């Protein structure tokens, strides 16, 4: 971002100053007590990098409209495969210059740098993804970004900005992958998405890191009048991962959904903090997260439906279900509701349970081996979320990746 325009350089300076000025997070704060920032390698000196221990094979570009790949935060040239006229897929640092009028009003507007994770990303990101789909254009094939870490550096940053104009339609996939690494590597990503009136966006975030990764991810979506935004987040990899999706219903009649699945095994620790904010009347939101936990892994789900005054006709749901597969695993679920409008329908549900012995027994009695029976049950459990991913190839890949973790 060497040639960044003055306004972008200024934002970076402020973010850097905020990093010094903001109190250091200790892990004693209510918001941080389940996943101390130190475990995310967010405090202390920059990790030195573990040294490369393998390479990542990128998936084929088949079926994508464009792809951007970043290795340790460094972008490769964009692979533009099939984009309709007017659609822009560009490296974000370059877009600051090339598409200033589109980028400037929106960058940092949903995820700023007043808090420590926001300031950290804003101060350090070097490259990212910019996607723009103009009014009325339907982008049928997904745009994919792949952020990889090799262990050569101790920090990997990514940032994505997506703009879907009125009546336009797009699918964007952000993929985070690495080989198993020895030492801690810190990853930070921020996704800001804007869906204008009548537009439609599906965003899939797939966290498929190898071991050694500590990742803080922020996802923010703004939906305009009658717009639809769907954020699907799949967390399978990394040692310590914290994902914070927030869906803003900014326009009346908007439809915002945050769906997620996570599967933590070994010593993995995942926290998901999922929020929907109804800032306009007659909007619909649905938060649905399902998790499986095995070995001595620990997962935390925090959800919040926020309905400030002045959002009558709100229709909002929140569900978190957890399947504990083995003794020693732990799940926390904390589904909040904060309602200040009377004309609402809101509900939430949280549950933690185990694989039903009877179901396993039944499948075994039909000749299915025990492990395969467990695979089927876990697969069935996640199906509700996987079904929401319209890109069939990715859906199959994720289902296979999740099933491969069952012990």
């Amino acid at each position, binding site marked *: 971002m060497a040639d960044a325009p003055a306004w972008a350089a200024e934002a970076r300076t402020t973010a850097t100053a905020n990093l010094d000025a903001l109190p250091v997070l200790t892990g004693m704060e209510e918001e941080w007590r389940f996943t101390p920032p130190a475990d995310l390698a967010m405090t202390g000196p920059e990790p030195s990098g573990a040294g490369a221990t393998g390479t990542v094979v990128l998936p084929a570009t088949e079926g994508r409209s464009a792809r951007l790949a970043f290795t340790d935060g460094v972008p490769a040239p964009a692979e533009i495969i099939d984009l309709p006229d007017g659609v822009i897929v560009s490296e974000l640092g370059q877009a600051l210059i090339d598409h200033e009028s589109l980028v400037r009003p929106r960058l940092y507007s949903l995820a700023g740098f007043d808090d420590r994770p926001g300031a950290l990303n804003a101060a350090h990101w070097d490259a990212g993804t910019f996607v723009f789909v103009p009014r009325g254009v339907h982008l049928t094939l997904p745009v994919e970004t792949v952020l990889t870490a090799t262990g050569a550096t101790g920090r990997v940053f990514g940032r994505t900005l997506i703009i879907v104009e009125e009546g336009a339609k797009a699918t964007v996939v952000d993929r985070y992958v690495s080989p198993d690494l020895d030492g801690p590597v810190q990853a930070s990503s921020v996704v800001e998405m804007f869906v204008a009136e009548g537009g439609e966006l599906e965003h899939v975030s797939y966290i498929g890191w190898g071991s050694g990764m500590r990742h803080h991810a922020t996802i923010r979506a703004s939906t305009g009048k009658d717009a639809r935004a769907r954020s699907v987040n799949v967390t399978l990899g990394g040692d310590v991962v914290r994902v914070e999706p927030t869906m803003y219903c900014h326009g009346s009649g908007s439809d915002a959904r945050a769906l997620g699945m996570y599967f933590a095994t070994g010593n993995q620790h995942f926290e998901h903090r999922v929020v929907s904010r109804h800032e306009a009347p007659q909007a619909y939101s649905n938060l649905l997260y399902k998790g499986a936990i095995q070995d001595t892994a620990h997962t935390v789900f925090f959800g919040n439906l926020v309905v400030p005054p002045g959002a009558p006709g709100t229709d909002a749901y929140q569900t978190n279900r957890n399947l504990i597969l083995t003794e020693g695993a732990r799940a926390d679920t*904390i589904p909040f509701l*904060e309602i200040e409008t009377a004309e609402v329908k809101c509900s939430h*549900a949280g549950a933690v349970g185990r694989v039903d012995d009877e179901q396993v027994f039944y499948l075994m009695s039909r000749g299915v081996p025990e492990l395969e029976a467990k695979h089927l049950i876990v697969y069935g459990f996640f199906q509700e979320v996987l079904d929401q991913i319209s890109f069939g190839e990715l859906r199959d890949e994720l289902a296979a990746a999740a099933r491969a973790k069952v012990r």
Partner: protein
Amino acid sequence: MSTAKPEIDIDTTYKYGWHDPANYVFEPKKGLNADVVREISALKNEPEWMTKFRLRSLEIFESREIPDWGGDLSSLDFQDIFYFIRAADHQGRSWDDVPDDIRNTFDRLGIPEAEQKFLAGVSAQYESEVVYHSIREDLEEKGVIFCDTDTALREHEELFREYWATVIPPGDNTFAALNSAVWSGGSFIWIPPGVQVDIPLQAYFRINAESMGQFERTLIICEPGSYVHYVEGCTAPTYSADSLHSAVVEIIVKKGARCRYSTIQNWSNNVYNLVTKRAVAHEDAVMEWIDGNLGSKLTMKYPAVWMVGPRARGEVLSVAMAGPGMHQDAGAKMVHVAPDTSSTIISKSISQGGGRTSYRGLVKVEPGARRAKASVVCDALLLDEDSRSDTYPYMDIQEEDASIGHEATVSKVADDQIFYLMSRGLSEEAAMAMIVRGFIEPIAKELPMEYAVELNRLIELQMEGSIG
């Protein structure tokens, strides 16, 4: 609120808002320090260990922060509170022994009348100490101990000391530390093995003075196979200066015993009600909290059950109603420590006229609590646009074969329900009241009849004038 500053807040719906002229036997100065704590202990002629316990608790309190979560405590000034007021120089065993002005208060509250009809024992606390106490003779003969906590320390010191602060130590939280330093009054109950107390024991807590702090301390021990239902009610006059009620309630329910603890809290809306309540349930024991929060400016109260013995069961039924200027931050905590334990939390809350209700709860399944089962259901009704309802459920599950569920809903009273009832000839207000009554029915039906009636009446009073 038009012309001159009124002496008291006008709150037409609060029936218990009068106060009596103050006529105290001992009334220390406002404020809190080690001398005040020593003075309270000396006035009560306490053994040295208790004085030390109080002073140690004061140190803990002073080292703690005031919680910044839950409700807004920023205008609570701990130096502007009376920590101990002695209203009578001795305790009555009959109402005739109670000073006239205080007896009048309890007459107006209807306590002596209720005692004759429904209760096995009554304790009445006025400011810091219990002024009246009685228990049915047959229970006394069976060995049931029901007295105020100060008397228990004097007369049953050994038993008292065995259990005191074992469930809620002073370091548990800021307000438990404060209570431990300045506690006074409350009930002490010991139910011998196998004794079933068939009708409820009741305590009534009344704050009369302005800027009063009431810090009662209740300790209940149910020996194996016993049963008791303890009921408490609370009111205070409506003043412009705030009062503080910060109680600690500890309960031990031993093997196969059952304890039910019902509270209908109807403090006036200038009282901060910050209470720690916790029970330990042993093998096959049952602990039930029925918790009605209808009054106070701010309540922060989360009755807890620690299920430490196999097959122990915990239950919390909670009703909260918040009107103008009120915040009810109420809920429950269930901690499953032993296998095959089960718990249920049912919370119903109603917000109206700008009031705020929050459900805040914790369900924790510790490693080893195999086959634990927990269910949490929270329903909230919002009666108008200005009110607020929050749900803050925490669930921490560390056992593979636990089965935990939580459900919550927030809704407005449906217009078509109101319309239907009005078409059958009810006024809008009556229709609304009927719907609210139906909403809390699952909890009201668990209360003794006269309390259920009282609960419904209090809710109707709060709703008066809320429509139109």
